[in-house]
């Protein structure tokens, strides 16, 4: 039994590793096909063609791409992401170290909020199926899936920052109040879509579970309703919800591109957009690489957690 679990684990790890390699290859190729290479940009606009060629040789850019890809991978494994093209030519690793914690904080808070509220609302809706509470929750969650977060953001700013004046409208370098006040709106808006999805999924899964025989038996045996819902039904219904939480978390990391721009948060998403506008290729590559890597790792984590939650999957793997 243990060997087959190990084999399955190995396959999953191998698949994740291949995905990471693929992402790194794509980010590498993206630089290759982009118009203008490092040498032309570093040499400046006034440089003669000869100077550009000399610089290209110095940087080793005239070698075959295969060699440079291996070198790029080697650099990645040592945590070397290259230097920014602009300003003080800051190492990209430092930029990532400075901005990534913000993105991860916001995304983690958002997914926790989405998971807790989503499961709660989904359960309530399922228990009161087709009654007023259920209908309201369904309509609100449909809106949550439909309305894009870059529409929600200005609407929230209008209501809470402009009209009610209780929350700041965006990040600033001198914070006039506790940090959570600045993060509250971004987190809630980022959480809206996954929250709505988790609610709908949890509702559907719970309704299906509640119709099964063992629930009827438990009810007949006189298990109290709350205990029946939480211990008997929810434990069985939660598995697809956990998968959804995982995939949503991955999407939140890219969703942060929009939220960070909208609220001027100094995170990795806003940095990436700035880099695109300035044509700062190493920073673009690094941000895509990191967001992609986190996405793969989170999906791997979900794959690994599932068997521990559901004995049936554990059995199926034997």
């Amino acid at each position, binding site marked *: 039994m243990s060997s087959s679990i190990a084999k399955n684990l190995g396959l999953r790890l191998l698949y994740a590793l291949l995905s990471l390699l*693929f992402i790194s290859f794509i980010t590498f190729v*993206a630089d290759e096909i982009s118009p203008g290479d490092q040498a032309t940009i570093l040499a400046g606009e006034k440089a003669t063609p000869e100077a550009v060629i000399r610089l290209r040789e110095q940087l080793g850019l005239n070698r075959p791409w295969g060699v440079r890809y291996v070198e790029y991978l080697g650099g990645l494994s040592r945590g070397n992401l290259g230097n920014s093209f602009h300003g003080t030519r800051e190492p990209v690793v430092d930029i990532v170290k400075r901005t990534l914690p913000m993105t991860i904080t916001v995304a983690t808070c958002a997914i926790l909020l989405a998971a807790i509220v989503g499961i709660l609302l989904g359960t309530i809706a399922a228990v009161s199926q087709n009654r007023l509470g259920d209908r309201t929750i369904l309509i609100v969650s449909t809106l949550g899936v439909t309305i894009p977060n*870059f*529409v929600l953001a200005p*609407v929230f700013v*209008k209501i809470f920052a402009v009209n009610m004046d209780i929350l700041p409208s965006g990040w600033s370098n001198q914070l006039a109040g506790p940090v959570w006040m600045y993060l509250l709106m971004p987190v809630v808006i980022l959480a809206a879509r996954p929250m709505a999805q988790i609610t709908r999924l949890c509702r559907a899964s719970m309704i299906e579970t509640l119709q099964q025989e063992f629930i009827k038996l438990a009810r007949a045996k006189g298990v109290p309703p709350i205990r029946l819902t939480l211990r008997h039904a929810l434990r069985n219904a939660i598995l697809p919800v956990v998968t959804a939480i995982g995939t949503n978390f991955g999407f939140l990391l890219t969703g942060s591109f929009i939220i960070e721009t909208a609220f001027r948060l100094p995170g990795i998403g806003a940095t*990436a957009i700035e880099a695109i506008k300035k044509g700062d290729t190493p920073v673009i590559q690094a941000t895509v690489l990191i967001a*992609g890597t986190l996405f793969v790792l989170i999906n791997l984590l979900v794959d690994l957690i599932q068997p521990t939650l559901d004995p049936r999957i554990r059995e199926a793997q034997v």
Partner: protein
Amino acid sequence: MSYLILLLLFAIFGPTMRHDYLNPVASPLQPPSAANWFGTDEQGRDVFARVAYGARMSIIVGFSVQLIALTLGTLVGVIGVFGKRWFRDPLMRLTDGMFAFPDILLAILIIGVWSTGLVPVIVALSITVWPGVARLVKTQVATLKDREFVVSARALGMPTRLVVTRHVLPHLTGILLAVSMVDLAGTILAESALSFLGIGVTPPTPSWGSMINDARAYINTQPLLLVWPCAILSLTIFALNFVGDGLRAATDPRNR
């Protein structure tokens, strides 16, 4: 459905019907009036004409992306079932690999190293959409491949190319139509998101996303500027999802 037809008419006739969408026609930040139905923006341009032109941009991007992604995805999906092994397997691994990228991250990378503008946006979004189509077509074609009418057509010596175009693909039109309707909503949303981030269609060409972004600066003085593109974008996404879900339910073989 009627909303979508209205939107299409709006996109075709709206920009020409009223005012110039690029140049000022009145004083800036005016409320709606008989001359400017939706008011004017910060440069005095007619918002109605701009929203209508934004609709046109959304539809151009949405349909081009769907067309490219459907063609490419269907081709890859069919090759994934009928293709020669040495060609098929690497291609399907590539398709699987594309799923390692979340959401619009790949589109952002492509635009980032290439350029902003209409064509890069269409190409970048097409590249993110086709793997989903390919996977869907592959599973559908794989089940069709073993059905009697396909098996007998091949047994009679019909060339694979003809079997695919005459017997297999006609069965996919319904489900592909439904899926592309929902995908269309996603594409329009993604285009707006890119424009909102300032890396989509190049200004001053209006797009709903960039209009929402620009309007944020005037949220105190003229909140209506924000309301129009937000409302129309949300309605469009909702309508496309609604119709797409309906179509899917109607074309799903399990419901027959």
